[in-house]
């Protein structure tokens, strides 16, 4: 289980404080797939960053009773000046995993081939997303935090992500921030709409989608 209690987060720009999260209460149970819906700027990414421990909330608590991935997205979690392989090595070291297993998985999953020997900052955004996905799936977590990247890449890669994430890891919990209602409908058990800094729960995913579409 991962639970947030009364989470608040604000950002400062100059002297103005912008309150993004105004008291979020959300519990994700083991194996549960929760969709985070909301308009751009509603705080979906912000909430995912707090859940992942990337940023720390102003107030409130996060209780973690299962391991969670870092937020899976375009940029996070790797170093641009290092090569794909160096990044894989780094991830293997800090998570205490076997390097050869991770290397094999990343090679196979990302299909980046010789590009893995080049610095990540030379990658296109699609290539970055492939690497990001490969690295985060190479480590096993109880809960995956997914920030909007499901639809990147070509059809083939899209299919692979789907298989790895939603078939092979169907027993894991996921928090998915997405604007793609098809995925939400297909995969998620619950949907939450972020609006005005508060999380609104709904009885069913369909109901949440209907409300979201009317936003």
């Amino acid at each position: 289980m991962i639970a947030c209690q009364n989470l608040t987060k604000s950002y400062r720009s100059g002297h103005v404080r912008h309150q993004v999260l105004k008291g979020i209460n959300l519990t994700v149970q083991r194996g549960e797939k929760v969709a985070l819906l909301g308009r751009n700027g509603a705080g979906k990414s912000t909430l995912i960053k707090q859940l992942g421990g990337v940023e720390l909330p102003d107030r409130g608590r996060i209780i973690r009773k299962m391991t969670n991935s870092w937020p899976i997205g375009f940029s996070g979690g790797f170093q641009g000046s290092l090569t794909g392989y160096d990044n894989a090595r780094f991830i293997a070291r800090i998570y205490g995993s076997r390097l050869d297993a991770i290397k094999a998985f990343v090679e196979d999953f990302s299909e980046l081939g010789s590009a893995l020997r080049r610095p990540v900052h030379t990658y296109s955004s699609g290539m970055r997303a492939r690497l990001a996905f490969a690295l985060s799936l190479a480590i096993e977590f109880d809960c995956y935090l997914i920030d909007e990247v499901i639809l990147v890449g070509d059809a083939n890669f899209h299919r692979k992500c789907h298989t790895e994430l939603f078939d092979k890891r169907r027993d894991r919990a996921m928090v998915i921030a997405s604007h793609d209602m098809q995925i939400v409908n297909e995969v998620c058990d619950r949907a939450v709409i972020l609006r005005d800094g508060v999380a609104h729960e709904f009885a069913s995913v369909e109901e949440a989608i209907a409300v979201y579409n009317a936003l």
Partner: protein
Amino acid sequence: MPSLRQGWDIQVRVISALMVRELTTRFGRENIGFLWVMAEPLLFAVLVGLLWRMMKGPTDYGVDIVPFVASGYIPLVLFRSAVSRGVKSFTANGSLMYHRQIKVLDLLLVRFLIELIGHMMAYLFIASVLGVLGFFPLPHDVGFLVLGWLYYALFTLSVMLVVAALSELSEAIEKIVPVVTYLMIPFSGAFYIVSALSPAAASVALYSPAVHGMEMMRYGIFGPSIDPHFDYIYPVGFCLPCMALGLVLCRMVRKRLVIE
């Protein structure tokens, strides 16, 4: 709740992974790699030592001038480069915060350790080369040499923690750091011995914990002839509160850190 043992294992793993990462990003894998970290202090120490020798003659304060300058300059360069490596290091490494087992202190510690090891290697190297050539005396007491280094390193680390945090909180601080570390020169004890100062100047110099460390090192190398002045308690009494302040500030900065 992970046990202490597990925590320690994670800590060791994180530090060593960060160390490798930092070394590869800074020095690459080409040519001499990590040995570059020695290059700057070595060049500084040798060139400044030779300059002083030309200006002031072969000895100063009754000891050989080249080892005197080299032994003072390398710790000073350590202080300056470690503190400036700390500046804005949290923002620069924001992407590492994606991994919850990495703490901001790990970043600083790794940067500090790389500087410390590099400068100590440079020191050892220069002392051995000069020693073989007959310009560097056999240390009078290695224990004091090491102790002096420890005091100097402690001082450097505690200042680095405070400066690294402050540089994230204020642009102005980031800008004045180079000037302030330059002004540290007279308070580093690098270019004089306390016993040669006037009593008034000596009492001012001894407010700086770095001077205590430097006097210990000099005593360790040159022996009682330089009449060292140092205290064991005062530098610790200065550095520990400074370090505590640094830790509090780092915590504050971490809380506010915005990561892309």
